[in-house]
């Protein structure tokens, strides 16, 4: 078992507009990407972020050995409850998932 961040070259979060948060996992090669792709489930992500599984989209983008994960923000960017306007510090729960 390894933390997800240990298998990736890039692991980042960012707004995809103020309503969505998107995560990019970029791998060194196809093999590492496939390994994670086969094991990382919506359930794991839902548990890490407290969101519903059916809100989560996972798309593999093989061109650059990457996986994109997107789901609606719990709090819209800039709402009174929000504490990360750009959404670029939301990646740690994902980074800590053990694969």
């Amino acid at each position, binding site marked *: 078992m390894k933390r997800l961040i240990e298998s990736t070259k890039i692991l980042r979060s960012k707004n995809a*507009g103020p309503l969505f948060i998107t995560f990019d996992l970029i791998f060194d090669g196809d093999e590492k990407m496939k390994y994670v792709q086969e094991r990382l489930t919506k359930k794991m992500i839902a548990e890490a972020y407290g969101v519903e599984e059916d809100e989560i989209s996972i798309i593999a983008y093989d061109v650059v050995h990457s996986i994109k994960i997107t789901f609606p923000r719990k709090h819209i960017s800039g709402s009174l409850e929000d504490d990360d306007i750009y959404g670029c510090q939301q990646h740690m729960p994902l980074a800590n998932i053990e694969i």
Partner: protein
Amino acid sequence: MKIVALNGLLGYGYSEEALNLAFSEKVDYLGVDAGSTDPGPYYLGSGKSFTDRSAVKRDLALALPKALSQKAPFIIGTAGGAGSRAHVEWLKEILMEIAAEEKLSFRLGIAYTDVTREYVLEKLESGKIRPMSVKMPLTKKDVEESVAIVSQAGIAPILSLLEQKADVILCGRVCDTAIYAAPCIARGYDAGLAFHMAKIMECGAMCSEPVAAADVMQGYMEKDYFELRPASPHRRCTVDRVAAHTLYEQSNPYLIYEPDGICDLTHSKFEQVDERTVRVTGSVFHEAEVKTLKLEGVRCSGYRTICPAAIKDPDTVRNVDYIIQTVTDFVRENTKNTLPENSYQIHFKKNGGAESSMGIILDVVGKTQEIADTVCALARSRMLHCDYEGRKSSAGNLAFPFSPSDIHVGAVYEFSVFHLAETDSLLETSKLCIEEVTQ
């Protein structure tokens, strides 16, 4: 055809050497994106820019004479950061200052893209509003409370102003891609390639190594392909960088959603042409049956006062939730006869704490600034001296980094509208005008 992106955001800077190199060849169009919703709803609400005036002036002042000397139309998207009329006027004033100082004459085209509450209400009532997320439906109240609403236009207003021979095009809220896709489409190039190139170029030299939003990018559009090469000789475009760029800030790396339709990258191919240049082929555009404008609106939610502080005692950190509850109850009790009901919200924004210390911001938003001040001061003093079981550091719970400890942040805005509006004409929200600037 050669199109140049000044950088990823007007006011973020770029290398003058790179600009000069870009203009050492014939340039057909120059573009720059001047806005984003990333910094949040405040800027649209307040009419202020998140970029600095003098930095914006510097970026424009170097570029404008270059564009005019080559008769390359200069397209500026989402003026002033959020693209409302106030933002367009702010940027126009800077442009006029430069024109006067540099003795420049040109034909200025402006596209205002603000919409009224009535416009949105009519769309809502006729069932033409589509939510972007199920978590944010649109109600009549949301629209009525909005203090500013803009429509994110596509290529249509830029196409129209190019047709009217504008030398400089100043846009309200437009899609970042429209800045670079419109001139390509105006010249008859393929829309799929045009939107794909535009999507990459709008971030300046972000798709190069070393990565930088703050530098000049060059796009070369041909019949069946486009090529990207950074203007700075110190940077290079690589297949990985260019291909990876459509991951950035997008929910789907294969599909770019536009008011006019969808740019589909499923069959795009990327090829390293030389050390610094990447060629792209195969991107396709599917026109939408029903066109949509994205609407962005904000409401004013009150006035904010904050108090940043730190807790450095692990014992206090362990008791922080008890302290927060005690403070919250105390503030409610002590203001129940003096402040109107529901006149404030208080949030304790905690950071860290897993180890030994915690940063915490007391964040109060009140119906007025005075209410926010009152609540913040009460919460701050109560939190400083709140007792808990086994407390040894009985002189105070909080380290304040500043005096005064409480800071006015001012008006607070939240997104009230972030929806798509179906339309028969993508020009219906654009108010276009042409002005001759002469010295």
